[in-house]
């Protein structure tokens, strides 16, 4: 493919370092550009907004200069369409000469760009997309969000320990949903439980009634759910409307369903739901308190797990630049990122040196009222969980 040409070109840039980057005349303070590609319009717009706000907040708080370089953030909207993401990434690399690609709201968007990262040897920070295999697509991909199996096995363990023998799964019928379904089933079966039924819901589906009726007929001990974050509130309401909460079916889910962005507006129907995830705005640490306060002030909404992915992505970029003293050679930057660990608003996290994927605590949470608002309140922790799919290999 293009690799030979691209290789020499990027190598030249790397060798000539910053001199070539700025195109010559700028001398005293060079700029490091970060291309942030996000879905800012369309059904996944809220993902983009959260990440953008977090990234901007990070720069505002830590200053726009790191290791003697000025950091410039270029935000682009890809509308959630992979071919557009790829074109934008390519243009950012060719025309704007960005040193980092970041963002990537959905799995296919990250997949489409992965070959570009390899060819141009540019670090690619995945801040949202959660399919396990993304980091395997290029040695330049580093992830600061999470993987679905990573947060799913926790809830399976919790269920097994809390007397769930027969469970059903209900997931959205697309990549991440099927990932979650499989991870849950494998883990629960290994722990001696049983998955008695699997229901997959089309993505474009306005009414949950028929699927919930199946669950209601089967009467499992628990129902495991994964739906993309926006749909969670409808699901929750209809679950309660069908009387499933009273008939003894426990609702367990990944934190996507009870996203911080919308959990408070779900109302009391959501109370008591058990989920596992890597971040809650209610996480009790000084770092998180400061983060939530600053974010709420800047963006006027509660930060969710997308925001914290964006925040940590920026942190990773800053720290890597510090380690390389501002050099923007892609290989050196990724090397610098490997094995890095720090305390994020979500708790202690690190980048696995081997897989370049995130290792983090996964928390078991319950929805409770705190100061009149609904929060995911953490009550138990699985520490330093790697991505189980890659760890199992």
């Amino acid at each position, binding site marked *: 493919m293009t690799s030979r040409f691209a290789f020499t070109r990027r190598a030249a840039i790397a060798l000539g370092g910053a001199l070539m980057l700025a195109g010559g005349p700028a001398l005293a303070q060079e700029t490091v550009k970060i291309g942030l590609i996000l879905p800012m319009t369309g059904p996944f*717009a*809220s993902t983009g907004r959260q990440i953008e706000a977090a990234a901007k907040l990070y720069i505002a708080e830590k200053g726009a200069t790191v290791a003697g370089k000025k950091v410039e953030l270029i935000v682009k909207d890809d509308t959630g369409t992979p071919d557009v993401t790829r074109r934008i990434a390519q243009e950012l690399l060719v025309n704007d000469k960005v040193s980092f690609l970041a963002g990537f709201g959905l799995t296919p968007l990250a997949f489409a760009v992965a070959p570009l990262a390899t060819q141009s040897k540019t670090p690619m920070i995945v801040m949202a997309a959660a399919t396990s295999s993304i980091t395997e697509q290029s040695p330049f991909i580093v992830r600061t969000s999470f993987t679905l199996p990573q947060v799913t096995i926790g809830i399976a363990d919790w269920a097994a320990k809390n007397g769930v023998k027969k469970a059903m799964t209900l997931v959205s019928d697309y990549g991440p949903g099927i990932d979650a379904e499989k991870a849950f089933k494998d883990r629960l079966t290994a722990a001696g439980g049983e998955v008695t039924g699997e229901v997959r819901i089309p993505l474009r589906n306005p009414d949950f009634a*028929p699927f919930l*009726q199946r669950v209601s007929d089967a009467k499992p001990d628990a129902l495991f759910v994964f739906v993309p974050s926006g749909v969670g509130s409808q699901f929750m309401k209809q679950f309660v409307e069908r009387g499933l909460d009273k008939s003894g079916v426990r609702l367990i889910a990944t934190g996507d369903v009870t996203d911080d962005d919308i959990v408070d507006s779900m109302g009391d129907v959501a109370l008591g739901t058990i989920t596992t995830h890597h971040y809650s705005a209610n996480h009790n640490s000084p770092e998180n308190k400061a983060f939530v306060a600053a974010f709420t002030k800047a963006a006027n909404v509660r930060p969710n797990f997308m925001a914290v992915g964006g925040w940590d992505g920026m942190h990773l970029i800053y720290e890597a630049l510090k380690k390389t003293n501002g050099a923007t050679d892609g290989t050196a930057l990724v090397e610098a990122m490997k094995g890095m660990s720090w305390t994020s608003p979500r708790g202690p996290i690190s980048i696995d040196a081997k897989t370049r994927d995130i290792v983090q605590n996964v928390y078991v949470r319950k929805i409770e009222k705190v100061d009149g608002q609904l929060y995911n309140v953490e009550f138990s922790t699985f520490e330093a969980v790697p991505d189980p799919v890659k760890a199992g290999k």
Partner: protein
Amino acid sequence: MLTILFDGIAYGMLLFVLAAGLAVTLGLMNFVNLAHGAFAMAGGYATVVLMNRFGVPFLACLPLAFLFSAALGLLFERTLYVRMYERSHLDQVLFSIGLVFMAIAATDYLMGSSQQNIHLPAYLQGRITIGGVGIGIYRLFLVVVCGLMALGLQWILAKTRFGSQLRAAVDDRRVARGLGIPVVKVFAITFAFGSGLAGLGGALGAEIVGLDPTFPLKFMLYFLIVVTVGGTSSLTGPFLAALLLGVADVMGKYLVPQLGAFIIYAMMLAVLMIRPQGLFARGR
């Protein structure tokens, strides 16, 4: 089983309320108004704002949502839509899609991009059991409200003076004007009424199908499907079609969930293959 049948009926009724306004504009006025969903969304958001910020009770919100969307519809009809009646369908499509884009971005700007929720009053929540059949109270409420509305609409259209004026104006504008029917006024009122219905549908539907800025695009397909399958020459057509599609969709997803997403589309294709004018169209 009966529960699922009832759920299907409720869902169908909801589809009807959402699509009824479109059946009026597209079917009766022959105007392709893809921005129909935007008026529904306006009604939904009006309800959210009234309930969550001003504490207006849910039942009082419904007529207010109707009025809000109707006023919005009237405003747009007088300023913009009125210029579009005589244009080709393609122009109308382009124009109304433009409006949809604007509505999406404006809503996003004003209200944020995340899901909005309304909180039903306690007496509409929960379930009752009638003869062993579990029925959601809110769904029952939907069926009653929508059923009454369908009857009311049919009555207005078939029995009132306004209804006959409208039918005349639609059939032949020029002759109707010659007969002294205030065509412009009739169209404006009808359009506003159709938008109001959409707003009411948005307010009623927000609880079940959700509400976010992409609503007008997400549900445009469903409106169009209901109206085409039902046929555009009456209101009974879309009504029966909505019921049929609602029941088939819900039952189908219950019985064969693997085929879930295909059912409604396949049904539409099948109907249109056999009856291109729609299921319940009279020959024109």
